[in-house]
């Protein structure tokens, strides 16, 4: 079986050649916006605050809220972005649905002030192979635990978004015999979580799945080694509790 190499990603942003002054122009722009532009203004914004459990709003709802000052439509757009993680076309449909539900006079009622137009940008991906290769599922998770945010983003969010839901990473896990873990990752990644939460949940699942395996291994160890491991675990727990108690 071939090794799986982790890949980071850098996004290069470029003008997409479209701008909107009001919700009506936003609607017509979204209808023809390239996938890379939809990606740039919704999904990719997660990487701008990669360690934040509460990342900033997507660009589209932020513009409607902050510039057009239509907070109800902004809420609906934010929800559409949050719930349509399946890919560009479902997202486009959901966004157009929100804007089509508004009467035309509402869509043209408020223009952005000069300089406040929503200028559409597109984000091109430059994948960056990290050289970190996993040969077994557990090795993959160990590497993922130390990998930076864009690696997680690329494999768990970006690739399936552009690839009609296909995640090469979970496909590899299935081929390596870790089908349940792969299913778990697919489920978790579909929840549109911020990156830190996604990382915690995926690694948490893996660690839980490891418990049974560790237990089975421990049973096969001699009594003295098991006692020693138990003592080390309790000492570690006490140390963590003490450190936690000393925090300001």
């Amino acid at each position: 079986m071939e090794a799986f190499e982790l890949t980071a990603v850098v996004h290069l942003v470029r003008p997409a050649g479209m701008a909107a002054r009001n919700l009506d122009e936003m609607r017509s722009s979204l209808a023809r916006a390239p996938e890379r532009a939809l990606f740039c203004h919704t999904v990719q914004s997660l990487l701008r605050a990669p360690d934040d459990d509460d990342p900033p709003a997507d660009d589209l709802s932020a513009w409607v809220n902050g510039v057009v000052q239509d907070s109800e439509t902004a809420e609906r757009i934010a929800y559409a972005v949050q719930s349509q993680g399946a890919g560009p076309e479902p997202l486009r449909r959901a966004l157009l649905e929100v804007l089509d539900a508004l009467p035309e006079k509402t869509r043209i009622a408020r223009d952005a002030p000069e300089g406040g137009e929503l200028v559409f940008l597109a984000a091109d991906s430059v994948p960056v192979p990290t050289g970190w290769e996993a040969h077994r599922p557990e090795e993959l998770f160990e590497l993922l635990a130390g990998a930076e945010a864009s690696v997680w983003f690329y494999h768990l969010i970006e690739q399936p978004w552009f690839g009609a839901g296909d995640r090469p990473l979970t496909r590899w896990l299935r081929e390596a015999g870790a089908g349940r873990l792969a299913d778990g990752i697919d489920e978790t990644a579909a929840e549109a979580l911020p990156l830190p939460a996604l990382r915690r949940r995926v690694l948490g699942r893996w660690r839980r799945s490891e418990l049974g395996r560790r237990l089975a291994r421990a049973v096969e160890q001699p009594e003295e080694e098991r006692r020693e491991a138990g003592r080390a675990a309790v000492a570690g727990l006490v140390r963590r509790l003490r450190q936690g108690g000393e925090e300001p």
Partner: protein
Amino acid sequence: MTLVQVSREGPPLVDRYREIAGEGAMRVLEALAYRLRGHRLVMVNSTDTGGGVAEILHRLVRLLEELGVPTTWEVMPGNPRFYGITKTIHNALHGHAGELSAEDREWFSETNRRAAEALALDGDLVMIHDPQPVMLAGLRRAPGQRWLWRCHIDLSNARPEVWDFLAPHVARYDGAVFSHRSFVHDLPLPTWLVPPSIDPLADKNRELDEEEERALLEPYGLPAGRPWVTQVSRFDRLKDPLGVVEAFLLARRRETAHLVLAGGSAADDPEGAEVLAEVRARVNGRPDVSVLALPPDAHRLINALQRRSTVVLQKSIHEGFALTVSEALWKRRAVVAGAVGGIPLQVIHDRTGVLVRSIQGCAYQIVRLLRAPHLRRRLGGAGREHVRDNFLHPREARDYLAVFARLLDSGK
């Protein structure tokens, strides 16, 4: 001498940036550099001293070398008349009046032709900064080379008569990079946006200990017992220093504070001198306002002023990118800034700072922040992380390497 020797003093930049920007950011940079192994980069601009472009190139060239990407930096030879012409071009690209005579155009072209003969340009990736050496791509392109034009100037109001002279030369590049979407001019070549960045190791941004900070500020006699509200900016109408004074005077009705307006001495800028005089006249005799005209190299003093301030303002009404905002955010300051130019990329409203659109809005936010230490801490902390993720030199280096990787891929 056209080849610039950059300083290699002190510990490797890679290690120092790793401590600040984080292991993950540097690992991606290293992986990208590895992807470009076997290629050679050349940077070209018109000066190795003064100005933001020279500042970043000194760091960038050394950083790329340390990352294993052979990089040289060449400065095109010029002459006083050429610099006079490029000053006219610079002003016209910013939308100010300025014309190029036929003789000016010929002199500009001849200086570029001489530069094309003098420079080595011996890389397969050549990055030309700004308009001065713009003709080199047409004069010296060798087979297999990729040429990138890095424009640091806002071209949105460029005078057509000057832009039309430059545009055919820009069209000979394989790609162009601008700092912000509003700076871009329509071009028949791939165009990318790479925001500028600050250097956390520079005198303007590095950590200062209390002793150093006190020594720097002492000569200015600023009051120690009151919170400072500070704007560090040129005395330029677009930075709205008079609006800052008005907003502060409104805020002073509610809270005690001291306003510090610090900027260049404007010795070589007649309009700046006029604005400075107006500001001084407006605050004449007020003990709660200090107007400081600083020398151009007052980087450590600016650093100390920003660190000591409770609220930092950048109440511009028109802006380029305004990296002073990132400088203040990096120091965990609560920032109040105008929602113009590149500022909204740095200040996410109520998250990394606050955006304002009026004098009253500015006054309201000054009072709000003076009264809320928790809010200041929250915004300041988030602001620093936002800058760490998006506006430090390693990120800019990473983006350039990604652009080069893209250019190389497109030529396959």
